[in-house]
C-alpha cells in the first residue's frame, strides 16, 4: 500500500505528471487528422461511450474516495476552501465526458450525413417556454439552493487569525481560482504572470470567435470539424488552468514546496531548487566563458530562442503542416492565432525547463524583461 502511495507521490510530481498529461492529451484530444487516426487506432474514443464514461468516473471517483482513507490526503482535501476544487474536478470530468459523448454522436451522424441530434426541423412546432422551461429552471434553482444550504451547514467558512502584515502564513495561497496564476508566478516575473498572461487569456478568449470563423459545428456538440480549436481550447482549459489549480491547491505545501497527494506537509522539507539563467548556462557552463558585459550579446541565445519560437516556427508551420489552414485564415488571423497558441505552448515549455534543468530565465534583462 505504502509503496503504491509512494509511487503515486513520485508520479504526481509535475515534471512527470504534466509531461505524461501533455503527451497523452494530444492523443485523447487530437488536434489534427494524424493524431485522430492514432486516437482511433488506440480506440481512445471509446472513452466517450457510456461504458467508457462509467469506467472513467468509477476510476476517478473511486480513486479519490480510496485516497481519503489516507490521513495526509484527507487533511488537505477536507480544508473547507478546497472542497470547491473537488467539485470542480468531478464537474469538469463529467461535463467533459458529456460534451465529448454528444460530440462523438453528432460526428457519427454527420459522417453518414444525418443532421446532428439537436437539429429540429423548422416545420415541426416549437416547445412552449411556459411551462416546461420555466418549470425546470425553477426546479434547478430550488435544488441548487437546497444543496447550498446543506453545504453551508456541513462546512464552516474558514477564518484565520486577524490580519497581520508582519507574519505571512506558510504556505500563503491565492484564492483557489487564481492558483493557476500563482503557479505561473513561480516561473515568470510578476508583470508577466500577474498582468500580461491574464490579459492575454482574456483577449485571447475574446478574439476566439473572430479567429475561428469557420461556419461548421455551430450550435451543436461536435469534434472532428473543429479538432484544432477544441484541442487547443481543452489544452488551455484543462492543462494550463484546471490542472494547475489542482496542483496549486493540493500539492503545494509549506515554503511552496511540492508535496505528493499522500505526503505529510512537513515544514522542514528541503528541496534543491538552485536556479540558473540560460545565458550563464550557455556562456559559463557550455562555453566556459565569462558573461559578456553587453546585455544584448549576453542574452542573444535567449533572444534567438524566443525569436525562433514566435517568429520562425509559425511561418514554418504555415508552409508545411498548416498550409491549407493558413490559406483559409489569411495573414492577420493566422498571426494572431499563432501568437496566442505559441504563447500558450510556451508556458509549459518554460515550466518544464525549470523542472528539468532549473532554468530561471531564458532572457534576463533586469528591470526590463525577464522571461
Amino acid at each position, binding site marked *: 500500500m505504502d509503496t503504491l502511495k509512494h509511487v503515486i507521490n513520485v508520479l504526481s510530481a509535475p515534471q512527470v505528471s504534466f509531461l505524461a498529461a501533455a503527451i497523452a492529451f494530444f492523443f485523447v484530444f487530437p488536434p489534427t487528422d494524424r493524431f485522430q487516426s492514432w486516437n482511433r487506432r488506440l480506440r481512445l474514443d471509446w472513452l466517450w461511450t457510456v461504458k467508457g464514461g462509467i469506467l472513467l468516473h468509477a476510476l476517478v471517483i473511486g480513486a479519490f474516495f480510496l485516497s481519503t482513507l489516507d490521513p495526509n490526503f484527507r487533511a488537505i482535501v477536507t480544508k473547507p476552501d478546497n472542497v470547491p476544487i473537488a467539485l470542480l474536478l468531478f464537474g469538469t470530468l463529467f461535463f467533459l465526458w458529456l460534451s465529448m459523448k454528444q460530440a462523438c454522436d453528432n460526428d457519427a451522424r454527420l459522417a453518414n450525413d444525418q443532421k446532428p441530434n439537436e437539429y429540429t426541423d423548422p416545420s415541426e412546432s416549437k416547445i412552449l417556454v411556459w*411551462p416546461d422551461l*420555466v418549470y425546470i429552471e425553477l426546479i434547478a434553482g430550488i435544488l441548487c439552493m437546497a444543496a447550498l444550504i446543506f453545504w453551508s451547514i456541513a462546512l464552516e467558512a474558514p477564518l484565520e487569525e486577524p490580519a497581520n502584515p508582519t507574519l505571512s502564513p506558510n504556505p500563503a495561497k491565492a484564492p483557489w481560482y487564481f492558483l493557476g496564476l500563482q503557479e505561473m508566478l513561480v516561473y515568470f516575473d510578476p508583470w508577466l504572470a500577474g498582468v500580461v498572461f491574464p490579459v492575454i487569456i482574456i483577449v485571447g478568449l475574446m478574439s476566439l470567435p473572430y479567429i475561428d470563423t469557420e461556419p461548421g459545428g455551430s450550435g451543436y456538440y461536435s469534434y472532428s470539424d473543429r479538432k484544432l480549436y477544441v484541442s487547443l481550447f481543452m489544452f488551455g482549459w484543462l492543462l494550463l488552468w484546471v490542472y494547475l489549480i489542482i496542483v496549486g491547491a493540493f500539492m503545494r505545501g509549506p515554503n511552496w514546496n511540492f508535496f505528493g497527494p499522500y505526503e505529510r506537509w512537513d515544514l522542514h522539507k528541503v528541496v534543491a531548487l538552485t536556479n540558473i539563467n540560460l545565458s550563464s548556462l550557455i556562456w559559463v557552463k557550455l562555453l566556459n566563458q565569462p558573461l559578456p558585459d553587453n546585455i544584448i550579446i549576453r542574452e542573444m541565445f535567449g533572444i534567438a530562442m524566443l525569436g525562433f519560437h514566435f517568429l520562425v516556427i509559425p511561418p514554418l508551420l504555415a508552409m508545411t503542416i498548416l498550409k491549407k489552414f493558413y490559406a483559409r485564415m489569411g495573414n492577420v488571423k493566422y498571426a494572431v492565432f499563432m501568437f496566442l497558441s505559441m504563447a500558450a505552448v510556451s508556458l509549459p515549455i518554460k515550466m518544464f525547463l525549470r523542472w528539468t534543468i532549473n532554468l530561471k530565465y531564458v532572457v534576463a534583462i533586469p528591470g526590463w524583461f525577464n522571461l
Partner: protein
Amino acid sequence: MADSKQDQADKLKAAGAGKAHGHVAKGHVASGDGQTRRSFISWVVVGWAAFAACMGGLATITMRFFAPNVLYEPQQTFRAGAVSEYAPGEVSTRWKSKFGIWIVRLDDRVVALSTICTHLGCTPNWLASEQKFKCPCHGSAFRMNGINFEGPAPRPLERHKIYLDDEGIMVVDKTVSFRQERGQWDEPESFVAV
C-alpha cells in the same frame, strides 16, 4: 427579491393548477379511472404546499435576521454615589450627558428620572429658576418629580430602577423603568428612601 420570488411562485401556482386541469381532461381521455388523476393532483398539492412553506421559511429567516442577538449598547447600570451627595430638593444633572439620567432628591426619596421626554423623545432641560423640566421640541414641561403639567406630553417622565448596593452606594439600572400612570412609582426598587 423575496416577493418577486413570491409572486413568481403564485403565478406558477396558477399554472400548476391550470396544468392540472389541462391534464385532467387528458387523463380522462387517456385512461378512464381517476387513479392517475388523484395521485397526480396529490403531487401538485405536495409540491406547491412545500413551495409555499419554503417561501414562508425564507420570509421568516429574513425577518429573524433583522433582530440582532447581541447588543453593544453603552453600559446600562452605573453607580451614582451615596445619597448624602445630593442635597434635599436638588435636581442633579451630573449623569445627564453620560447616562441620560437626572438624580432627583425629593422630600422622602431619591429617584432616577429618565431624560427622555414622553412626548416624542427629545431631551428636556432643567430650568432651576422655574423649578421645571422644559422640553425644547414641543414645549412640554414636567415638575421636579417628573409629573407633566405643560404642553403635549401624555404622561410623566419615566423613573429607572435605583437601589443601594452592599457598600451603600446608589446604583441606577436603566434597563428597568417605572411609570407613574401604571402606579409603579411606589414599587420598592423605583426609589431609595431617605
